[in-house]
C-alpha cells in the first residue's frame, strides 16, 4: 500500500466563509489511497463527500492540513500547475454528466487531448479507443442532446478515461440513472479500473454504487466515521 500510494490526505480541514462566520465542511481528515483502488465516500448530504472529492481533484484547497496528489501538495500548486494536474492525471465524472452541449460526442471526449496538444491522428485514435470501452463508437457524431442519460454518462466516462488518468473522481455518477443504466456504467468503470489500474473514487449515497466498491469511507458531519475494506464487493 505504501509503495503504490498516490493520494495522501493528512489532517485536512476545510472551512468556508458563511455570513460573518465560517462553516466547517471537513474536519481533521487523514486518508491514503493506493493505485488501482475502487473506493468511495458515502454519507448523507452535507457530510463533505463532494468537498473532499473537489480537494482531491485540485478544484479546491484545504484550509488546514495537506492533500498530496501524485506527490503534488495541491495547496502549493499554482492555477496553471493544478490545471495541468487535472488535465493529465485526473478524470472527473459528474452526476449531471456536464457534457459540452455544442460539441459532438467525439469532440467532448477529444477535449482534454486538445489541451494536451496532441495531433489529430493521436487524438482520433485515443477517442475512438475510449468510445469503444464504453460501447459508443456509433454515437461519435451525435450531440449530447441526442443521447439518453445512460449514454451521456458513458460519454462522460470516456471523456474522463481518454487521457489514461491515474485517478478518476466520480461524483454521484448514478444519481440520474435508472437501475439498468447504473449497473451498466458501474460495470464499465470497474472494468476500466481492473484493466487500466486507474484509481476510482466515488462520492455517493447510492446503495447500488456502494455494492460495487472495494473500500467504503463513511463521512458524517465532515469527519471520517468509518473506513472499511470490502473484500467481497459485488464486482
Amino acid at each position: 500500500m505504501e509503495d503504490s500510494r498516490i493520494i495522501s490526505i493528512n489532517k485536512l480541514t476545510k472551512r468556508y466563509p458563511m455570513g460573518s462566520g465560517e462553516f466547517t465542511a471537513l474536519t481533521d481528515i487523514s486518508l491514503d489511497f493506493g493505485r488501482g483502488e475502487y473506493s468511495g465516500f458515502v454519507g448523507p448530504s452535507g457530510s463533505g463527500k463532494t468537498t473532499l472529492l473537489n480537494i482531491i481533484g485540485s478544484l479546491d484547497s484545504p484550509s488546514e492540513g495537506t492533500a498530496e496528489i501524485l506527490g503534488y501538495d495541491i495547496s502549493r500548486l499554482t492555477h496553471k500547475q493544478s490545471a495541468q494536474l487535472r488535465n493529465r492525471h485526473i478524470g472527473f465524472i459528474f452526476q449531471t454528466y456536464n457534457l459540452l452541449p455544442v460539441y459532438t460526442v467525439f469532440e467532448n471526449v477529444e477535449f482534454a487531448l486538445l489541451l494536451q496538444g496532441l495531433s489529430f491522428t493521436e487524438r482520433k485514435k485515443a477517442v475512438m479507443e475510449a468510445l469503444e470501452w464504453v460501447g459508443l463508437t456509433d454515437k461519435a457524431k451525435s450531440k449530447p442532446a441526442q443521447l439518453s442519460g445512460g449514454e451521456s454518462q458513458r460519454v462522460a466516462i470516456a471523456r474522463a478515461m481518454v487521457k489514461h488518468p491515474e485517478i478518476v473522481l466520480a461524483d454521484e455518477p448514478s444519481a440520474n440513472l435508472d437501475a439498468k443504466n447504473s449497473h451498466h456504467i458501474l460495470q464499465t468503470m470497474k472494468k476500466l479500473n481492473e484493466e487500466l489500474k486507474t484509481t476510482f473514487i466515488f462520492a455517493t449515497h447510492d446503495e447500488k454504487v456502494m455494492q460495487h466498491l472495494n473500500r467504503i469511507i463513511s463521512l458524517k458531519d465532515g469527519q471520517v466515521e468509518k473506513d472499511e475494506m470490502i473484500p467481497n464487493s459485488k464486482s
Partner: protein
Amino acid sequence: MVAFKLAFRNLIGAGLRTWLNVIVLSFAFFIIIFLNGFIDGWNRQARKDTMNWETGNGQLWHPEFDRYDPYTYQDAHTPVTDEVMKLVKSNVLTPVLITQATIYPQGRMESIILKGIDPDQKILLLTTNLLVSEGDDIPALIGKRMAASSRLKKDDLMLVRWRDKNGTFDAVELRIAGVFDCNVPTVDNGQIWIALDKLQKMTGMDGEATFFIAGKSYTGGDIAEWKYKDLKFLLSDMDKIIQSKKIGQAIIYLLLLCIALLAIFDTQVLSIFRRQKEIGTYVALGMTRYQVVGIFTVEGAAHSILAIILGAIYGIPFLLLLNKTGIPMPIAGDQMGISIAEKIFPAYSLGLITFSILLVVITATIVSYLPARKIAKMNPTDALKGKLQ
C-alpha cells in the same frame, strides 16, 4: 489556437443568437466603411477640383492680401518684378489682380469681385482663352452659380463700376464671353473674371498683381515680398468642414457600433450567467480560469470576425457599385461653400478598411473581455454546480 477552435465551435453552436449579433455588427462595419469612404471620396474630389480651379499647387500672396477681407484688396497689389515675371512667362506662376466692383445686371446692383487673370494661363481649368479680345471689347467669364444668381447668360452685356488705384470711380460694359461649370463655389459666386491686362488698365495698376497661382513645377517658398501659401493653408477651410462632417458621421456610426457592441456585451453576460456549469467543466478538464476567460473573450471577439466576413459578402458588391456609379448629391449641397460634385465617388483605401476592421475587432474584444473577467474570480466548484456567483 485551441481557444479559437473552441470559441468558433461554441459560437456556431449558439445559432440564431450569434447570427443576430453578427448581422447587427456587420451592418455597423458596413456603415463605417460606407460613411468614411463617402467622406474620403468627397475630400479627394473637393481637393482635386479646388486645386484645378482655384488654388493651383499653392499661391504667392501680396503681404497685405487677405482673401477674407475685401478691404485689403485696395492696397494689396504691387508691380511684378523681373524675377517673378520669368516664372510667369514659363507658366510656373500665373498672376491674378483683384478689385471690388459693382455690376448692374438688368438694372439691379450687385457687389462683386473683379478678377484679372492671364488669358494664356495653363494652370487653372478656367477657360481663360475666351478672355482674349481686340480693341475696347472686354469679355468676361462667370460661373454657373453667378450666372444663375444674376440671371446672366453668354453674350449678355452688363455694366460694371469700379474704383481705380486713386479711388476714382469708372464704369464700362462687359460682355459675358462664357459661363463655366465647376464644382468650386469660391471661384464662381460673386466673381467675374476678365483678362489681366484689361483689369490692370482699368484700375491703373499696369504690370501689377495681387497674388500668383503656382503650377505643379513650382517648388514652394517666398519670392521677394510675395508670401508663399501652401495647399495646407489654402485648403484649410475645406479640411475643417470635412473634418466636422467626419465627426458628425463618426457619431452616427459609433452609435450604431455601440448598439452592436451592447448586444455582444449582453450576450456575453447572459452566456457567462447561463454557462457556469460549462465553465466549471472546462476547469475540471484541465483549463486554467484565465484560459476560460480567453475562450469567452475570443468567442465574443469572433462575432467581429464573422461580422467582417458577412459585411464583406454583401458590402463589397454594393460598395463597388457605388464606387462605379457614384452617389448623386442634392443641389442644396452647393450652398455649403466648398466643392461638391454632382456625384461623389466614394474612396475605399486600404487604411480605411484596416481602420474599420481594427475598430470592430478591438471594440468587440474589449466588450467581450469585460464580462468574461468575472470567470477569473469564479470558484470552480460552485461553477460546476451552476451556483450563482
